[in-house]
Every structure is written in C-alpha cells, then in structure tokens.
C-alpha cells in the first residue's frame, strides 16, 4: 500500500450517541482502506453500524453523534472539517446514493431540475450546458427517452428508473468516490440485477471508487473487490472478496454465507438461520460480540475481545478460533 496512498483511509473510527437512552456505540475502532477505482463492500445485519459508517464519511451524521478517529480522503482529514469544506466535497468528490429512490428525490421538482442543481452546486456551468450533461448522463445510466425524462416529476418514473436518476445525480459532478447505502434493497429482484450491473459498468468506465453497503453477502460478492464484514459496530473480517466468500474464517461470515438461500435448493430444505438475534444497540460485550450466537465459542471468547489479524484463509479476521485454522 506504500506506493499509492489510499483514496479513503479510515482509522479507529468510532461513532457513539452518548445522549441516547441507553447510550449507543454504533461503531467502534473501524479501520478501512479504499484505493481509487476499487470497490469495497460493507456487509452486516441491521444495526451493525453500516449506514452510520456510510453517513460519517461525507459528514452527514445527525447532530447528536459523537465521532472520533480519522477519515482521510485523498490524504486530507475530513472528519470534523468545517461545513463549507464538507459541502464542497459532497457531490463533487463524494457521491451518495440512498436506499430508497422513492424518498431520495424531492417530489415537487422535475428530475432535470434536481440533476442540474446538483451539477451547478459545484461547477460554474450554464443551465443549457448542464441540461445537456444531465441528458447524456441519464442516457449513460440507461434511462430510455432521457430528454423527455428530464421534464418529468419523480412520481412519473418507476422505482428502477428513479434509482437510476438517483445514481445519475450522485455521479453528475464526477466524484472520485461513490457511496451507495443499500442501493437495491427497495427494488425488485430483476431490477436489482440491472442496477448492480450498472454500478459495475459505471465504476469501471469512470474510474469511480465504490463503497457499497449491503446486508446481502451475495450482492456484495458479485460486485466488490474487497469485503469488510461488520458485526456490532466492529469489523470482524475483511479481505479480498474471493477469500472472504471462498474461505470465510470468522464463524459469523460463515453463517452469513450459509444463510444466503441458494436458488437451486429445494423449497423443503430448511433455511439456515443464525441462532439468536443481533445485539441490540447499546448492548456491550467484554469479549467477542458474536460469542453468544457462536457455535465455536470457547471460554476465552466471552472474556477477551479478539483483535483483527491475519487469518488462515488470507483474510484479516477477529476471532480466537477461526475456521480453517488447525485449532
């Protein structure tokens, strides 16, 4: 990693809500690196802190959040940057795609108006030129009849088209990093595949780095170069997508992969579920947070927190008894 400084380098990121009842630690000691043009997937269950991580990067966390650690973007510390600096980065350097395309577009403004506005917030460009850029970008994200769509309101578009517009809006000022928070969760399965293919094509073509947040290991595995698995606000395993999916070392990653229903499985086959439930926000553990649900638990797991280190399968794993090891 010495040759090329990472586009995004996150160190010891912690996010807490001390004023909430009970006080919540959403994220704890998270380290992540993302090089320009690469695709990193963050996987975890609801409440694991995925969205908190995504929102923290462009400084979009709610006012009650207490954040510590460092977030370096192109070498610049952006955590705690003044609002004006963050606003200049948002859209221009860091694009953001929200989960629900239904809710992410302002209902009373035409699609074109919102696209042009997002572009003109960062570039001094005339309305006509901006409109032309917006039309070309809509064509690029495979919106049919792009010129007419610019004059339409969000409610006149289907869910899939709307998500394409949201993606176009995030990309219009050519950011170096695109953050997508569960971008396909609200969509039909058939549309989901199209959108994932679009993400792949766009990031390769434009050289945009992608940080993809998802609860779906299969989605992340199909699109990303690297994967980080979050559990209860900590990274429990990270590494190349192939290694994480092919030879998961953490029992949680293994269970997640096993819980993804295979298409060819018979309908009678029992669904593999992870026993127990995800820790509630505010719950704390002296040892490993996954220990209560873990089939490989030993006494040490409940008393001592495992640290992230090289695992047997070539991934970084935080586990006292990783799978594939000889213990």
């Amino acid at each position, binding site marked *: 990693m010495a040759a090329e400084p990472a586009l995004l380098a996150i160190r010891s990121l912690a996010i807490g809500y001390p004023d909430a009842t009970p006080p919540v630690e959403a994220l704890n000691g998270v380290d992540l690196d993302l090089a320009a043009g690469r695709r990193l997937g963050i996987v975890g269950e609801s409440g694991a802190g995925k969205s908190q991580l995504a929102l923290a990067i462009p400084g979009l966390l709610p006012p009650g959040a207490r954040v510590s650690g460092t977030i370096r973007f192109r070498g610049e510390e952006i955590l705690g940057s003044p609002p004006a600096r963050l606003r200049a980065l*948002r859209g221009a350097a860091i694009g*953001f795609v929200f989960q629900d395309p239904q*809710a992410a577009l*302002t209902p*009373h*403004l035409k699609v074109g108006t919102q696209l042009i506005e*997002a572009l003109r917030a960062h570039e001094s460009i005339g309305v006509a030129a901006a409109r032309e850029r917006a039309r070309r970008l809509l064509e690029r994200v495979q919106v049919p009849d792009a010129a007419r769509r610019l004059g339409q*309101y969000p409610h006149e578009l289907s869910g899939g088209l709307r998500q394409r517009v949201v993606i176009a*809006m995030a990309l219009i000022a050519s950011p170096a990093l695109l953050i997508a928070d569960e971008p396909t969760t609200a969509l039909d399965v058939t549309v989901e595949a199209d959108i994932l293919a679009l993400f792949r094509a766009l990031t390769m073509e434009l050289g945009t780095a992608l940080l993809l947040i998802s609860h779906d290991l299969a989605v992340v595995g199909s699109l990303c170069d690297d994967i980080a698995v979050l559990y209860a606000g900590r990274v429990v395993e990270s590494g190349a997508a192939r290694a994480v999916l092919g030879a998961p070392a953490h029992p949680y990653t293994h269970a997640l992969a096993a819980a993804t229903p295979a298409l060819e499985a018979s309908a009678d086959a029992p669904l593999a579920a992870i026993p127990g439930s995800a820790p509630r926000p505010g719950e704390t553990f002296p040892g490993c947070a996954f220990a209560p649900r873990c089939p490989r638990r030993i006494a040490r797991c409940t008393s001592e927190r495992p640290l992230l280190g090289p695992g047997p399968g070539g991934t970084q794993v935080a586990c006292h008894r990783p799978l594939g090891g000889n213990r």
Partner: protein
Amino acid sequence: MRRRGPGLGLDRTARIALGVLALIAALALGGPSLSPWRVDQLDWAHVGVAPFGPAAHWLGTDRLGRDLFVRTFAGARVSLLIGLLATLVSLLIGVAWGAVAGYAGGRLEALMMRAVDVFYSLPYVFFVIVLTVTFGRSPVMLFVTIGAVGWLTMARVVCAQTESLRHREFIAAAVAAGVPTARILLRHVLPNLSGPVLVYATLTVPGVILMESFLSFLGLGVQEPAASLGNLMAQGAAEMEAAPWMLLVPCTVLVAIVLALGVLGDALRDRMDPRGR
C-alpha cells in the same frame, strides 16, 4: 388523474367559491360608488328601513339612516384589506422564522421557538391596547398589530413542518449532493410547506377579520363613521330584535367570505399536491 377543467384546474365547488370571493371583492371595490349614497351620509327621511326599500336603499338603512349597501361593502373592503395585509405580515414573518428555526434545529431552534412562546404568553388584548395607545388608532396600525401577533402560530406550524421535512431522505440527498443550504431551504423545503401554510393562511384571513371585528367592538379597531364588517355587526346586534337585517346583511357577507376562503384553501391544497388525486 382528475380531469382538469378551465380555471386553474380547480373543481366546481372551488370555482364557485372563487366566484363568490371575486364578486364580494368587486362589490367591495366598486359597489359603494354605484349607489347614490355615501358611507357617512345620513338620510333622515328613511331611518331603519328594510332592504329593497325606497330611495335606492337596496339593503336598507341603519338607525341613523345611513345606507347599508354602501356601508356593508365599504366595510367589507376594510375587513378584506386588513385580513389580507395582516395575513401577509404574519405569513412573511412566520414562514421565515419557522423555516429557519425548524431547519437549523438544535439550540437555535430551541431559542427561536422559546421566543415565540414568550410572545404567546403576553396578554394579547393588553398588547394591542398598548400599541394602539402608543401609535394611535389607524387601520394600518390595526393590521400591523394583528399581523405581529398572528405570525406566532404560523411560525409554529411552519417550524414543526420543516422539522419533519428535515429528516426526509430527499433533503438528505440534496445535502449529500452539496446543494447550498439557502437553496435547499428555498427550493426543497419552502414549496413543500405551501400546502399547510396555504391552508393555515386561509384560516388566518377569516380569523383576522373576526379579530378586527372584536377589536372594533371594543372601540380599538375601525372607528365610526368609517365602517367595517365588525363594527357593523356590533351595531346590528344592538338592533337585532327590531331590525334583524342590520345584523344579517354584514353577517351574510362575512360568512360568505369565510366559507369561500375555506373551500378555496382546501382545493388549493389538493392542487398543490404533485401526486394528484
């Protein structure tokens, strides 16, 4: 999609309401000059005559022989003017104050809305008396004082509405796209407020008109011999048993204004909703 006829795409009831309002407004502006009588002219030959009476007293006369048609529509002019201007004043202050407070949130919101609470707790009538005594009694003063107090509720409505909007994803999306705050407020937040603001404004206009009549009744509002719907009704109420038309004529006009504004506000709210019906 509802089929849209001519005339702003409003439905039939709303078009009738608009027509009634337009008619009253036209009569308020031009009506008094149609009659041979002046607002303060006494006709001793015809004191307290019923509507459709002699000597072109189309809606009768009051107990001093003044023409009720002329006085009612001159009064409607004053009432509408005060209603509209005071609502405009409360709209401007209330929307700006509430939108800024609601969008800023946190400490600034708390500070701004507690200020509203403090103003609210001032005894209103006392406040108006102090203002009118200090600055003199005039219609201008009247709408300034009513507007200055009327914005408080508007600010609360707008603040609550903005606060719920602030947490909507499309605002977050606009912020994430780097759109400047002022532009988000003007383009993404304000138009979304137009529904509740419009509905509340259509409630404010008749509220202000009623407030004006109450103040006029106390002698703090529009002064004789000038007419307003409020002081006409106050006089009419005194003669209710002998000459009910003195109360009924200004009352009918007031009810028509209030009702038409309500229907119109409802229809406008429906039309503002981009999802259609």
